[in-house]
């Protein structure tokens, strides 16, 4: 099974805190994958404690063609330790908390640099590690600094779109720039128009992230 094999499973972990749009993005990725003809789509999301400042993580697993050996296909909605190809982090410390176990040398990280300090940090009882420290930990997985990218997505969403909530789409655009997904912009737009309110703003946010990502990573 080579890396370019269509039966290869792409494992994506999206993490953040409640209310940041983790589930919205994960759902969108799955719909776009289905629209793009992926045969295997399976993923898990957390409902329940949503919106209560808790940590949120979701996994999504995509496979372009199902393998003739059925045992090679997707059976679990959760990925295995170390098996993430891509981690999209909406909040830096949440990447460590909920993506760390699933990361390994093959993992690419794209991380929003806006911190949401947990209440114990605000209360001065615990310490939030510096962004450089977090970055160094993540680079430690592969030793390759190019696989760990921080972006000011919340800042961009506020400055350019007057809407911090669109950070998730900026992050998605940025993730697209890594080339791990092979979705076309046309399919993305089509699904966004079908699935999301404020489609125009979301598409603008997506493009903003994509351009930012291309500039940072070099063109695809």
């Amino acid at each position, binding site marked *: 099974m080579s890396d370019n094999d269509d039966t290869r499973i792409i494992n994506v972990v999206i993490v953040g805190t409640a209310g940041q749009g983790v589930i919205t993005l994960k*759902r969108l990725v799955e719909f776009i994958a289905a629209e793009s003809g992926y045969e295997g789509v399976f993923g898990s999301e957390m409902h329940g404690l949503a919106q*209560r400042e808790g940590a949120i993580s979701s996994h999504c697993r995509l496979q372009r063609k199902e393998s003739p050996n059925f045992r090679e296909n997707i059976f679990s909605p959760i990925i*295995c*330790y*170390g098996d993430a190809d891509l981690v999209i982090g909406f909040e830096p410390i949440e990447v460590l908390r909920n993506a*760390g176990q699933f*990361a390994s040398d093959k993992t690419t990280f794209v991380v929003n640099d806006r911190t949401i300090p*947990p209440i*114990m940090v605000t209360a001065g009882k615990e310490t939030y590690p510096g962004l450089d420290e977090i970055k160094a930990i993540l680079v430690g997985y592969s030793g390759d600094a190019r696989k760990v990218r921080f972006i000011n997505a919340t800042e961009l969403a506020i400055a350019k779109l007057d809407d911090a909530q669109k950070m998730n789409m900026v992050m998605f655009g940025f993730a697209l720039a890594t080339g791990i997904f092979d979705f076309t912009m046309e399919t993305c737009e089509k699904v966004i128009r079908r699935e999301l309110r404020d489609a125009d703003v979301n598409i603008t946010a997506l493009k903003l992230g994509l351009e930012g990502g291309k500039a940072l990573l070099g063109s695809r």
Partner: protein
Amino acid sequence: MAIDARFSPQARKGERYLFLGNEALIRGCLEACVGFIAQYPGTPTSDIGETFKDILEQQPELQEYIVHHWSVNEAVATSSCAGAAWAGIRALNPMKHVGMNVASDALHSITLAGPNPGALVLVVGSDPGSLGSHHEQNERFFTWMHHTPMIEPHSPQECHDWIKLAFDLSERYDLPVYFRTSTRSAHSRGKVEIGDFKLPPRPKGEFARSTSKYCSLPPYAINNHVRLYERINAFTRDVPSFGLNKAFPGDAKTGLISYGIPFGYSMEALHQLGLDDVPVLKLGITYPLNEDEIVSFMKDLDQVIVVEELEPFLEVDIRSIAQKHRITASIVGGEVFPRFNEFSTGLVASCIAKLTGRTPSARVQRSQDTFNSYKARIPSRYPTFCPGCPERAMGMAIKKATKDLTDPKTIIAGDIGCYVMLINPPLKMSDFIICMSGGLSAAIGLSKKTDDKIIALIGDSTLMHTGLPVLADAIANDANVLLIVFDNRWVAMTGHQPPVGKGKISFEPLISSMGVKWIKTVDPFEVEKTVRAIQDGLKQEGLKVILCQRECALMAKRGYDAERRKLKSRNEQYAYDAYQVYNCVLCEKCTEMLSCPAMRRTTDDVTGMTVMRIDEDRCSSCSVCKQICPHNRIKRTAFNPHLDTRLQLRRIEKQ
């Protein structure tokens, strides 16, 4: 609201859509002539009712045929469903795992009677890992007690296909069917090939009197018990013909038995360990087991690994079948796999590796080692109240009124709802939490055997669920307790369903007519008044009630935001309150008392000093922090030196 095409009759047989497990089973119900749904909300099943509500709102022509109720509690919901089933309707009754404790009383009699001429399918959302519940009780054992057949799906496709079959089986065998999902299977999304939409043949059914069937008490109780064995034995015999249990062949002498999501972990774990030759029996029906099926899978094996979350359930049954049929294969399960918490592919792989002498992949090991090397440095993140939550404000007021629960010494009887989060720092209050309405119940006993002050907490929805009888007990027995009712107008914790009786039942006259003499209504955003009310209440004898009236902050904010968007789209002017910290002296009072997530500890750009700052895009302008700042450093302002003023929109008043 636009119609979700996936739930419309226009979506036809053979089409494929992405569905969550819960959505897939809803589509299945719509293809299986479901006519009545009743439930009390509870993760991971709340969204079933919400989706049904949306479907009926979007397609009003269905309302004549399909009725959805938010019931007052699970026992009422289950019995409501039985009533509909006895009129010949196919009824669906979703609940969370602990809901089964409440429903069980009703379900036992209903199972003895049987749901015919209609059908009754329970969707029970289990929660290994306690991801959205106060504990991870293994409620599967109820099926042994009630003799309700249990189906456990693995994928959204199975949720869809099998719930349809569940209705058929319930009808055919005159048994309620226990359709067990988990937090994972309910909220996993995958592709589903659907069938054709099928409404019930007619809007209403018909009830035919049959005392012997429907009244399971002497002299009919024993007869119904006999009849129950006839029904469940026939079901057990026919299990192989339903096609839900499936054996995946393999040449190895070690086999594996699993079900649902753990089956998924097991398949990937085996593949990862290079054990594709291990035969696997996947059980779709986990109660009752058909002996022939189990024996034919096990008979030539040396070892059988049973992979199941929580306490051994299948394993117990499988062991007894093996013993009866003198099967010599060793059976391993609960002594190797943990009996607590949610499983994962990695965990199952490491357990199987130990059993089979394999080594787990080096990548898994490296990944775990790296994670463990920095794990301790990750600051904890407790779920906490949203910015502007009235329950945080009330918690703070209680602490203030009782000088941190010491003067007078005060015991806090917690309960189930968002206010369970009071146990987390910084407030750390709730001295015990039992179950729905367990707080006031325990407070009754405590009040008789201690002289401490007792404050019991309860939400509006919990009060309706089981709280009113407890309130009656507290009044009848002269419990010396101050009860605080959080009237936030929503069932907030489970995703904002309307509490039963919203707009129809008002608490003050209700509680007063029950005989409570001392009732005060407070707005927790008025800190001083609230503190005084608590202090006054604690001085009174007997049962006292404070109604804490303030809408859930999330819903209130949604309202503000919608209004803001409307005004903005019309280019109308609007004003709002904003709060900011000026010249903070870092006394920490706000973090000690509130720890509002909108408050951030940061470094002042100019002075380089550590200060508190309010994130204006998160603040909901409740003003509670302003009221408790001892140095008066938090000001109401329309101008913010740090941020673009356009971001300060919160409480909107038309100018």
